[in-house]
Every structure is written in structure tokens, then in C-alpha cells.
């Protein structure tokens, strides 16, 4: 019941996105613009600033993710469909999980474009340890999406949601961002510091478990008015 409901919500979000492509295009355009602007600032005469690539990659993911979160729940606000979802006889945490998976998929698509672009513009050897990079991005994106989806759902009926979301989200995801940036920086060293990267992946995974437990536990009471 839990998994089937979560997948049903994910499938529904996918069907809407296939028809509108609104969130995907906005998120991608924003993420790519972000990286391009940073490349203009931080690459001088073909030489990028040392270690800038890791930070810029994660900043682009976080900013694009915030945009995607806002838009995803804006869609549920229109027509009050979030209320309809909460009224369904399914575990409310499964509704949360479905929405969260949608954000993860969207950010994963953005990252597929962002990683090669950052590697190209900042001369960063991001593909030197592809598996570790994928693990870092997966764990970091999951952590960001877990916290972000909970806050975005909580704020869906708040008048100041566009202001409140970053104010709540960014401080809470600072550990995720630090771990992501540090882990990616370790992978960009020559030779790659895989032991440090693995340590950060472990920390990110632990954060994911803690965040997910709290989110699944609190979603229902938070969403009951």
C-alpha cells in the first residue's frame, strides 16, 4: 500500500510534467544559467578558481531544487489537490514519499546535464571516480529533497511560502551541502582522495536516514490542520 501509493503519486506527477514540461524546463534553465554565470566570474583566462567546481555544482543543485520544490507544490495548491491527496485512504507518509521521489527524479535529470557542464567549464575531473560521484550526488540530492519536500508541503497554504521556504530549507540543509561539497572536492583532487569522499558519503547517508525518519514520522501531524 505504501509503495504503490508513493509510485502512483510519482507517476501522476510525471504524467503532468510530460504534458506541461513547466518544472523541468524552468529548473534546467535556471541550473544551467547559474553554472554559466559562475563560470564567467570564476574562470579567468581559461583557468578556473581552485576548488570552485564542487561548490558551484552543489549551489546549482540547491538553487534549482528550491525552484523545483516551490513549483511542484504550487501545482498541488492550485485546485487544492494536496487536500484531496491527504483525504485518500492511504498512509499520508506515502503521499509525501511520492512527492519527494518526484523532486529527486527532477534533480537527477538536472544533474545529468550539470555535471558535464561543470566538468567542461571548470576543467574539473568529475568523471575520474564516476561511481563515487554518483553516490555523493544521490545521497546529497536525497537529503536535500527529503527536507525540502517536507517544508514545501508544510508551507503550501502559507501566504509567505516563497520567502519562508529558503529561510527554513537552507539552514537545515547546510550539513548536506557541506558534505556534498567536501566529498566532491575530495574527488577532484589529483589523485582523488577516495577515502575522504567515502567518509562524506557515509555521513550523507546517515543524514538521509535521520531526515527520512523524522519526515515520515512528522508528515501526517504537520499536514493535519
Amino acid at each position, binding site marked *: 500500500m505504501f509503495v504503490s501509493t508513493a509510485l502512483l503519486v510519482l507517476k*501522476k506527477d510525471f*504524467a503532468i510534467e510530460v504534458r506541461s514540461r513547466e518544472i523541468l524546463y524552468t529548473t534546467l534553465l535556471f541550473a544551467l544559467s547559474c553554472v554559466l554565470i559562475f563560470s564567467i566570474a570564476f574562470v579567468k583566462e581559461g583557468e578556473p578558481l581552485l576548488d570552485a567546481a564542487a561548490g558551484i555544482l552543489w549551489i546549482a543543485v540547491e538553487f534549482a531544487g528550491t525552484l523545483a520544490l516551490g513549483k511542484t507544490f504550487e501545482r498541488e495548491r492550485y485546485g487544492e489537490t494536496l487536500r484531496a491527496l491527504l483525504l485518500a485512504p492511504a498512509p499520508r507518509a506515502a503521499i509525501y514519499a511520492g512527492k519527494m521521489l518526484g523532486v529527486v527524479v527532477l534533480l537527477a535529470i538536472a544533474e545529468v546535464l550539470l555535471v558535464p557542464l561543470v566538468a567542461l567549464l571548470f576543467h574539473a575531473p568529475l568523471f575520474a571516480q564516476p561511481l563515487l560521484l554518483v553516490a555523493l550526488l544521490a545521497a546529497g540530492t536525497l537529503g536535500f529533497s527529503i527536507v525540502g519536500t517536507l517544508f514545501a508541503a508544510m508551507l503550501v497554504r502559507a501566504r509567505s511560502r516563497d520567502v519562508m521556504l529558503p529561510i527554513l530549507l537552507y539552514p537545515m540543509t547546510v550539513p548536506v551541502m557541506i558534505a556534498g561539497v567536501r566529498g566532491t572536492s575530495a574527488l577532484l583532487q589529483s589523485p582523488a582522495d577516495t577515502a575522504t569522499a567515502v567518509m562524506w558519503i557515509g555521513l550523507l547517508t546517515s543524514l538521509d536516514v535521520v531526515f527520512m525518519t523524522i519526515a515520515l514520522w512528522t508528515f501526517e501531524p504537520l499536514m493535519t490542520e
Partner: protein
Amino acid sequence: MSKSGVSDFDSVQLLDVSRHFGRRRALAHVSLTARAGDILGLLGPNGAGKSTLIGVLATLVAPTSGEVRYGGQTAHALGSGLRRRIGLLAHELHLYPELSARQNLDFFARLYGVETGASVDAALDRAGLGDRGHEEVLGFSRGMRQRLALERALLHRPRLVLFDEPFTGLDDHAVGIVAGRLRELAASGAIVIIATHDLDLADGLVTRVALVRDGRLLLDEPAQAGLRARYRSVIAQAGHA
């Protein structure tokens, strides 16, 4: 026992229910019973607490104090299966405009564990959208959306049917269709509760009247002819009290 594992209840009872949002009192000590076959009209001016009451009955809003009993049991005791027995049609239609009418119904049918083929076809026919099921809801008129939303809310054959301002923005023909559907539901044994401020539409449709103002229940009695006059008199008395 129904498919949901929740017994079909014959009544829903609000027992001394209050609800505060911060310092604002939305409901104050409301006690009310609706039974199978009733069309209970929750009447009152804007901001009276009608929508909060509907939210409490739908399990979307938790009471600050008091409790709601569905056939003698609380929502907490009945668990999420209770929601399979509740249908809600609000002023906001709970539809995804980017999806087609059929996709909307398919999605909600699956969410409620209802088989999608014949039920969805029948719902589209009842909504008068049998040949337009593949079209995006975005292109529908308000009346078409409302009819679709009504069938969406009733797809899982709920026992408790809650309507919050169901007639807003509808023409006379569409109002007639919705009102007819409400009578059918009540005749089939559902508990129907409508929150509205439109006394003309409620008059002749509802079988019981509950009048709410400032979160307080001012009146709970069988409906009689001349609803508007009765409403004015009770509001005037409450104003003098």
C-alpha cells in the same frame, strides 16, 4: 463491514467540538448529529466556521477539543480506512487541470483502490463527459469541471458525502444536476452534508438545517419551508442576545 475494513456507519456525531487557529476561534462547542438519508445544510454567513466544520468531518482539520464519532467510533480508532468512506467536494475542485478527465478519475480511483475501467467510464458518463474524457480539464468550463469533480468525489461510493459551497459559479442547469445527485445519494443511504451560504439553493433541497455563526451552532432542526425568513429571525435573535 465494507471493503475498507470500516463498518458502514449510519450517523456522524460532533460532540462539543471546538477549533482554534491561534487566538482565532473557528468553532466553539459544536454538537451535531447527521444520519443516513439526511441532507444536512450547514448554513451561515461567510467566515461562520462552515468550512472548518467540513474540514473536521473530513479528518483534515483536528478539533482543539471535543470529538467526532463515525457510527460511535472516533477517526483515530477507525484509522486511514475511514477516509475510504468519506467523499469531499470543495469549492476548489481537487482536479489536476493539466491531466485529462479520464486521467484524473483513473488516478483518484487507484488512490482509493477502486477498479479503473468500468467505474471511470460510468463516472465520465454521469458527468456528461463520456466523449470528452481524453481532453485536458484545463479546457473545460466551470460547470464541466464541477460535474467531473462531483463524480471524482463519489467515485469510491462514500458513506459520508461532504460538499463545501458546491453550487458556486454554476448555471441553473448545472445546479439542477448537482442537486439531483445529492438527492440520489441521500436516498441510497449516504449521509450528505452541504455547507453553503446560498439559502435559495438550500431551500427545498436540505432535510435538516444547522445554522452556524461565529463558530457557534445557533440552530439544528428539520428543514421547513421559508428557510430565508427562519434564518433571518435566528440571526436577528443571536444578534440581540
